[in-house]
């Protein structure tokens, strides 16, 4: 009896610790719970590989392939912009900027990264889109390129500051070894530091991909909301996340359309979960290797 009381505070403290596991499980449960009834009216094949998303047509068509395609276009392009630019910016901060400016620039980046995505959506919609349309003569300013640019701007600060941390805390003995062999700073950077940081950099890339993949407001406002297969980056598109946000508000509860939107949510959840898990595993593996050596 006495031992139970002695262990009580520890046991109580463990309960909030479990809550994140419980929430993750509850999220996946409720997404699937509200998704499964869809298959009474639509086959799984028609859901995953259907090429038409017409939820209000008669009969309604719930094919999410165009949405997946658009999500892949936008997130691939956004990562292709985000990753190299974050890398360049991280090098600039750690190698070129004088030390006094370093903290200022990092702080400004940090503030920028917490600007709500809806504000960047506003700028993409009211400033960048008209510019694309009127000055650059694109068919529509609300397209894949515009949303990828806005997404990258939103994402860049986080990978930049993570990369910068890894670059500045790189083991000094290896850098000095390079210097002793007569390597220039850029040779040290690209032949010693970057190869040594492959692990963390790929985990950072996964993290940015996960963020971009699930980002909603920017693509909802800027990507043009057309559920078609885009053929180039100047086409409008509609992603998985934007579809949920645009349609859920007007959908009656417990209708097939409602179930289909939860299905999209489940797909989005599973994909981002896997992306984050891969990033996390790479990070843990790298930390272990560092710990051993």
């Amino acid at each position, binding site marked *: 009896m006495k031992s139970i009381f*002695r262990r009580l505070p520890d046991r109580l403290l463990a309960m909030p610790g479990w809550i994140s596991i419980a*929430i993750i499980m509850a999220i996946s449960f409720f997404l699937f719970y509200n998704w499964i009834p869809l298959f009474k009216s639509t086959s799984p094949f028609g859901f995953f590989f259907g090429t038409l998303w017409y939820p209000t047509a008669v009969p309604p068509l719930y094919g999410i392939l165009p949405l997946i395609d658009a999500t892949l276009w936008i997130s691939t392009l956004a990562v292709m912009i985000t990753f190299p630019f974050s890398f360049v910016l991280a090098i600039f901060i750690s190698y070129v900027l004088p030390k006094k400016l370093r903290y200022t620039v990092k702080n400004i980046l940090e503030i920028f990264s917490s600007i709500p995505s809806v504000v960047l959506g506003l700028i993409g919609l009211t400033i960048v889109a008209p510019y694309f349309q009127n000055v650059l003569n694109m068919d529509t300013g609300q397209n894949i390129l515009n949303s990828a640019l806005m997404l990258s701007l939103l994402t860049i600060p986080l990978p930049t500051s993570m990369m910068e941390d890894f670059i500045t805390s790189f083991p000094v003995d290896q850098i000095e070894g390079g210097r002793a062999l007569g390597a220039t700073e850029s040779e040290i950077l690209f032949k010693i530091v970057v190869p040594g940081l492959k692990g963390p950099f790929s985990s950072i890339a996964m993290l940015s991909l996960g963020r971009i993949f699930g980002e909603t407001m920017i693509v909802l406002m800027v990507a043009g909301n057309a559920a078609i297969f885009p053929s180039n980056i100047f086409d409008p598109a509609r992603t998985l996340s934007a579809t949920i946000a645009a349609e859920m508000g007007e959908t009656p509860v417990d209708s097939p359309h409602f179930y289909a939107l939860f299905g999209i949510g489940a797909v989005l959840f599973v994909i981002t979960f896997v992306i984050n898990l891969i990033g996390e595993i790479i990070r843990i593996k790298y930390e272990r290797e560092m710990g051993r050596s």
Partner: protein
Amino acid sequence: MNFKKRILKERIIFTIISILAIAILISIFSIFFIIVSKGIRVINLTFLTSITSFDFKGIPTGGIGPAIMGTFIVTAIGLAFSVPIGILAGIYLSEYKSKGHLFNVMRMMVSNLAGVPSVVHGLFGMAVFTIIFGFGLSILSASMTLAILALPIIIMTTENAMKDVPIDLREAAYALGAKRWQSAFFVVFPVAFSKIMTGVILASARIAGETAPILFTGATLYLAHYPTALNEQFMALPYMIYGLVTTSMNINASVPFAFGIALVLVVLIVIMNIAIMIVRSKSRKSLQGG
């Protein structure tokens, strides 16, 4: 000759890097500049305090008082749910870590929870809080959804803050006969407190600006009065920006209004971030001094 070539190559590489980096920094600054220069035109005291209304052409007039209030209330209630649970979970993760495999799973779940797209949080909040719990479209549903979103941020910063406290302090506490939870709460927690507060501010900045989770849990575009009860719908700053430029009757006339709201949000967030920086630099100094 060879050496000169290498020096030249070095210069070229760093020049290109600098040009690209400065280009990004300029675009980031220009976004701040656009928001401030466009937003400042509409901001005055009536804009900040009075109730929103639309005239017959769909032009928004009045102010954003209810939306500011709504965002504050939802953020505050969200924090009231997430801060105690998040801090306790963070303390548990940092102070009781020597328990093997399950712990890595727990920590992985926390960072995975941080990576869940916000629109999925919205779906979850809708399924659980508005439908199953029966809270309906309300302040309560929205703030509980936002609480779940804030939770991993608070857990992770608490865990890191507690871990940064030197191990000697814990050992001193154990030597005096303190139990593990006593050392955690009475010795380590007070030292880590200011850093934990930065996590709380960070989380509130994050949830104040979120739109997707409140889309279908209780936010509304128009409310003729300040929020009065927890089971009512509410106006929120980020959702109002979205509504004004996508669904309002007269979009062109609504854009300046939307930029005014954007400026209010950005100013709020800058203030919060500056608070974080002050706390951080203070704790850095106190560590150096002691």
